[in-house]
């Protein structure tokens, strides 16, 4: 009888099947997309101190959305598509002449300085979420457009791109430190002051 030369070879033919099974399991149970969205900070529930802050009416840009999705901006019924230009005109106005980089009309009836300009957003309880997001998007867009303009002037690149690189965890620390100051500087030129009032109930 012939002697066996070592152990017989294990049949690896089914290895592929096993691997396929695992592969399909992972394909089914996992998701690949990263989420994106609009970042917002909510106001703290209680104001830190009860001081009466006097804000001039002309420094507030009031946006109201009713339950049908109609838009009232500074007591004027406007179309959603006009909102971005309206908001930009308000922020960039520079009414009291202290803002050296503003390119607005310097209308005395509108905001004094970007650092004082506040956009106040109010919506109805029955407003559709989609409409609300569109309005939010346009307002954030207005800020981003102005910040991009200043970033282009000062650093020769877009603010949104700089911010994305700054927030990206894969960016090396040295570049991050450099970007941090630039991002901060642009943010200070046009600080995002977006206040959201409590929602009103119907009627």
């Amino acid at each position, binding site marked *: 009888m012939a002697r066996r030369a070592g152990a017989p070879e294990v049949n*690896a*033919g089914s*290895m*592929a099947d*096993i*691997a*396929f099974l*695992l*592969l399909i399991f*992972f*394909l089914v*149970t*996992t*998701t*690949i997309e*990263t*989420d*994106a*969205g*609009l*970042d*917002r*900070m*909510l*106001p*703290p*529930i209680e104001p830190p101190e009860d001081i009466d802050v006097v804000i001039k009416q002309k420094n507030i840009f009031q946006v109201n959305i009713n339950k049908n*999705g109609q838009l009232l901006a500074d007591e004027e019924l406007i179309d*959603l*598509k006009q909102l971005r230009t309206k908001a930009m005109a308000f922020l960039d106005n520079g009414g009291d002449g202290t803002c050296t980089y503003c390119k607005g009309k310097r209308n005395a009836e509108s905001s004094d300085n970007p650092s004082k300009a506040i956009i106040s957003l109010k*919506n*109805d*309880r*029955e*407003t*559709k*979420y*989609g*409409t*609300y*997001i*569109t309005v*939010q*998007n*346009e307002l*954030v*867009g207005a800020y*981003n457009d102005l910040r991009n303009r200043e970033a282009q002037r000062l650093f020769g690149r877009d603010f*949104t791109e700089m*911010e*994305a690189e700054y*927030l*990206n*965890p894969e960016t090396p620390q040295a570049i991050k430190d450099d970007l941090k100051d630039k991002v901060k500087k642009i943010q200070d030129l046009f600080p995002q002051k977006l206040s959201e009032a*409590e*929602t009103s*109930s119907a009627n």
Partner: protein
Amino acid sequence: MSKFSKKKSGELPPVSTASLPDIVFMLLFFFMTVTVMKDSSLKVENVLPNANEVKKLEKKDRVIYIYVGKPTQEYQKVFGTEPKIQLNDKFANPSEVGDYILAERAKKSQELQNVLTTALKVDKNANMGLISDIKLELRKVNALKVNYTTYEGDAFRNIQ
């Protein structure tokens, strides 16, 4: 009876499949590294609105998810068709949001507890009333950083 006819020498040998497992394993490892596990199945309709001024939500371990939308077909008999909140795997009232956030926050490690973001994944047909209630609850537990999760696209498609 003759023996089996001898093979012709010119015939092609069969293709070797010995490297097939390696290829499949390579695919498997690729998918294991680039994907994340789904943590909860959706019980609500969740068609997110579009927006184009978006920021990417990096670092999944710092995010708490809240889903809002109309219950899907199979749950409509029990829960009706009004938009509901889904926390983890169950439906909830706005008053439960605060407790949920606190519980989720407690699960995270100490150094992450102050940098958490709440991602609101809301169906575009939901009403703002419910969202305001959630926002109020979030403010009560001091979870002020929110992200309205959206698809990337033209924002004006939301209002058609």
